[in-house]
C-alpha cells in the first residue's frame, strides 16, 4: 500500500462517520448521504496531493462535502431544502444512550425542523467539533454571524421541544 493509500484509509476510518452524519442531517436521506460521502472521498482521493497538512484534512473533507451537497441540490441552495423532504424514522433505529429512545426520537425530529441556515453551523459545531471562528471560515461568514446562527438553532430546538413535548424532555424547563 502506498503512502497516499494509507493516508486515505486513515482519513476514511477517522472521519467518514462524522461526514455521513453531517450529510444526513443536511440532506435528510440516508442513501443520498452515503452517496455524498462516497463522492466526497473519491474527490479527496483524486486531489490528495493538494492536502498540505494532515491536520487540516477534516475541515478539507467537510468543505468538499458541502460542495458535493450543493452540486447535488443543483439550483436549489442548500439553505432552501424543503422541510417536506424530512422523512420519519423508526425510533428503534437510534442508538441507546443517556436519553431514552423516545426522547432521542423527539430530539431528532426537532433537529430536522431547524432551518437549514441555522442547522449547518450547529452541525459543524456539534458533529465537527469546530469553534465559531473555524465554522466562519468554512462557510464563509463572519464569526458573529456564526454565533447568531448557532444561538438561534439552539433556541429553535428548545422551543420545538417545549411546543411538542413539554413534559418529556428534561432540559427545557
Amino acid at each position: 500500500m502506498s503512502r497516499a493509500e494509507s493516508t486515505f484509509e486513515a482519513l476514511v476510518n477517522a472521519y467518514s462517520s462524522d461526514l455521513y452524519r453531517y450529510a444526513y442531517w443536511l440532506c435528510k436521506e440516508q442513501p443520498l448521504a452515503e452517496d455524498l460521502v462516497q463522492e466526497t472521498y473519491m474527490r479527496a482521493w483524486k486531489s490528495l496531493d493538494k492536502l498540505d497538512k494532515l491536520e487540516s484534512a477534516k475541515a478539507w473533507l467537510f468543505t468538499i462535502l458541502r460542495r458535493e451537497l450543493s452540486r447535488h441540490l443543483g439550483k436549489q441552495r442548500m439553505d432552501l431544502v424543503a422541510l417536506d423532504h424530512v422523512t420519519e424514522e423508526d425510533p428503534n433505529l437510534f442508538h441507546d444512550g443517556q436519553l431514552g429512545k423516545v426522547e432521542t426520537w423527539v430530539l431528532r425530529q426537532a433537529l430536522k425542523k431547524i432551518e437549514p441556515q441555522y442547522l449547518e453551523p450547529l452541525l459543524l459545531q456539534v458533529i465537527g467539533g469546530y469553534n465559531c471562528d473555524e465554522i466562519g471560515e468554512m462557510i464563509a461568514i463572519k464569526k458573529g454571524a456564526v454565533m447568531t446562527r448557532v444561538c438561534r438553532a439552539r433556541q429553535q430546538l428548545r422551543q420545538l421541544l417545549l411546543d411538542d413535548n413539554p413534559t418529556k424532555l428534561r432540559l427545557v424547563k
Partner: protein
Amino acid sequence: MNCIDIRNQLLADPGSQDHAIRSHLNDCADCSRFANDLLVFESDLNRASKVEVPEGLASRILLRQRLAAEKNRRKKYGMATAAAFLLSFTVVISSFFSFNLGDVDSQTLEQVVLQHINDELYHLQDHKNLSVQQVNSVLKNHGNQLKALPGRTINYAGACPIRNNQGAHVIVGSDSGPITVLFMPGEFIESRSHLKDKRFQGVIVPTGHGSMAIVAEDPQQIEQLERELAAQIIDLS
C-alpha cells in the same frame, strides 16, 4: 454583560471558557443553572446527532478508491505502453523514411544509381537469356523500345523504382561480366556524366524520357554497350 447576553453567548458556545462568562456564572445562580442545563442538553444533542452510520460505509469507500486507483494504474500503464509503442513506431517510420526517402532525395542521381545496383547485386547472378520482346515488355511503359542487341545476352529485365518513378533494370551479359542498364524515366539530366564507386564504374546519358545508366565492373565494356544501345533503342516519345 447582562444575563441575556451571557445566555446568548452560552447558546452560541455552551462550553465557552470566556473569563467574563465564567465570572458571571460564579455570581449568578440562575445563569449557572442555565449553563449546566445547557451542557446536559448539549450532551443529549450530541448523542442525538449520532445517527447510525450504514454498516460497511468505510469499507465501501476504500473499495471504491482501490478500484479507482487500480483502474487509473491500468489506464496509465496502457497509456504509457501506447505512448512507448507510438514513439517506437514513429522512430522506426522516421528512420525508414529518412533512410529510404530522405537520403534518396538528397542523393545525387549517380549515388542513387550506384546504391540501387549495390542493393540488387543478386540480379548480376541472373542468366535468363531473355528475348528482345521480353525486354521490350518491361520497357514499353518507359517510352523506350529495343530493336535488337546482336551478340548480347540479356540476363535480366524487370521494373524497379528509381526515386519517385518507375524505371527498368536490365542486365546485359558481356565477356568481362554483367553490365547493368537502368532506364530512369523522369530523371532528366543536361549532359552525360560519369559515376564510380569501389566496385563499379559507369555513365548516365540523357534520353527522351529521362536518362539511362550503364554500369559495370569493367569500364571497357561500358562505352561499347553505350554505342550499341544508342543505335538500337527506339525512343517512343
